[in-house]
């Protein structure tokens, strides 16, 4: 039963992007509201957002449509202006800048977009060159910069192609090269993989990881897909109704989600949603002779422990595995298992106790 866990490598000592490194992007009590117009009252898009992206880390902000993600990311480069609080990027208070100051600051903040936003009448090369042209860089210096960038994103052979001749993934690679052209310290990713198929998404996320590591680039990304967070983010913030409801290292958030919104996002990827035939029979109260369903989350040092056989042996309890999944998050093993055990209250309590003694979390989902 526990074989999948024991073959995994031991977890790395230190997770990336811990709190000790200085923050490159910092939101301090940031609010954004849109003034009342005829017929519509004032709308608060973001309320009291406190958020810090450590230098060189990838922080993912996840939220549903309308949660305020787009607004949040656009505040960082001043495409939208905050109505309360401060946003400090690489030591510069973005909220205090005028338009000219903002234009200068934006040159050290790259951005990529869901729909790529490439100029249709410029080739891949010319698209990557655009931010350099805007910054007034000479044609020769542009050539010296653009060609290695196209190489970095693996598109040297497409340099003279127009966007219409490129696939979605290739377009986003051009977008990434373009965002990196002015050697930014910060990269903003606005749903960059939402228009791509799963395989291309993985390739683009791998490329983001690569540039993040090679260039020590600080990345703030927004997404509505937990799988994106799982694949690349060191830290994650959950945005709901314009507020950050939960924030922390990605691994911890997966292991111990607190907020219902977080739980529902995680349910979609981490195998914590029950199979329909089980979910349909799930009740809140025990039935005679039935089972209690317990979800155990295997994390960190204990993710590789043979927990189930130990419980079964020590407590003399029959453990019925309903569902099991093992995964890797931020490079560390992570498992979720749902088991059925006899529903006598003392048995359930004993199992929960012994699981907690192993520093794992467990919860009763219901009874069948």
């Amino acid at each position, binding site marked *: 039963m526990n074989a999948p866990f024991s073959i995994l490598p031991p977890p790395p000592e230190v997770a990336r992007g811990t709190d000790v490194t200085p923050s490159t992007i910092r939101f301090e009590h940031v609010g954004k509201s849109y003034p009342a117009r005829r017929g519509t009252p004032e709308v608060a898009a973001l309320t009291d957002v406190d958020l810090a992206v450590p230098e060189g880390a990838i922080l993912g902000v996840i939220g549903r449509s309308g949660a305020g993600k787009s607004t949040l990311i656009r505040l960082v*480069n001043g*495409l939208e202006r905050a109505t309360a609080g401060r946003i400090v990027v690489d030591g510069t208070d973005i909220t205090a800048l005028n338009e000219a100051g*903002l*234009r*200068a*600051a*934006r*040159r050290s*903040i790259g*951005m990529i*977009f869901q*729909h790529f*936003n490439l*100029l*249709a*009448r*410029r080739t891949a090369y010319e698209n990557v060159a*655009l*931010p350099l*042209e*805007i*910054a007034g860089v000479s044609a020769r210096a542009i050539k010296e910069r653009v060609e290695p960038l196209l190489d970095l994103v693996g598109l040297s052979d497409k340099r003279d*192609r*127009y*966007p*219409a*001749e*490129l696939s979605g993934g290739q377009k986003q690679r051009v977008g990434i090269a373009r965002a990196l052209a*002015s050697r930014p310290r910060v990269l*903003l990713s606005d749903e960059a993989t939402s228009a791509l198929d799963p395989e291309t998404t993985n390739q683009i996320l791998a490329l983001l990881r690569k540039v993040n590591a090679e260039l020590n680039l600080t990345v703030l990304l927004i997404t509505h897909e937990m799988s994106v967070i799982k694949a690349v983010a060191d830290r994650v913030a959950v945005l709901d109704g314009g507020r950050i409801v939960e924030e922390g290292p990605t691994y911890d958030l997966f292991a111990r989600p607190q907020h219902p919104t977080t739980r529902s996002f995680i349910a979609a990827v981490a195998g914590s949603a029950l199979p329909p035939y089980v979910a349909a029979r799930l009740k809140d109260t025990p039935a005679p002779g039935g089972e209690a369903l317990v979800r155990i989350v295997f994390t960190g040092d204990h993710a590789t422990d043979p927990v189930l056989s130990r419980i079964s042996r020590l407590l003399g309890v029959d453990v019925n595995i309903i569902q099991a999944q093992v995964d890797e998050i931020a490079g560390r093993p992570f498992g979720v298992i749902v088991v059925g055990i006899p529903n006598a209250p003392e048995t359930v309590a004993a199992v929960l106790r012994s699981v907690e003694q192993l520093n794992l979390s467990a919860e009763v989902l219901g009874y069948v």
Partner: protein
Amino acid sequence: MFDILSPAIVDLLIEATKATLYMVAVAGLIGTAIGLPLGVFLATSRSGELFAAPWLNHVLGLVVNAARSTPFIILVVAIIPFTRLIAGTSIGTSAAIVPLTVAAAPFIARLIEAAIREVDQGLVEAARAMGASPLQIVGKVLLPEALPAITLALTLAVVSLIGYSAMVGAVGGGGLGDLGIRFGYQRFMPEVMAAVVIVLILLVQAVQSAGDLLARHLDKRNRRG
């Protein structure tokens, strides 16, 4: 077709074609010189846009609408004092350029505005995120991206100008329309009228085909590798 026309009429036809081309070319150039920046401004000056000036946008919009809603033949007559002021006379080919330009500029402005508004706002946002100034956004994003649509818009404007230029013949302007009215209609020479119509059709065809070809060449959106 020239066989049935006398050499004198053929000469007149050639002269009239030249006069029409001259009027259309000059009115088209000046009309574009006024209409292009006006159109760009109209497309970028509503509130929240690059050169936000909602009040000026509104006023210019009203002026453009007023000019556009005046029937051309009325416009020609109504602005005779203005034409005299600019051209020194209200009769002849050069004088006809004035009302043609006055009619073309707002028309071109609206066409350019529509072409610019067709450009994906995402591109403007991307350029802003790169630190582009509003003028750079116009010069490096809006105009280049709208170029195929602008080409088609100007083609349409030139075709319309060819039609308008025939109308100024009725009020003493030169050109093909003038020839058609004076010889074809007033002197009962249907062959001259036919020749005028055929030359106009050929001109419009040529302009439209050239415009379509150029726009297709400029448009990189429908290529497939």
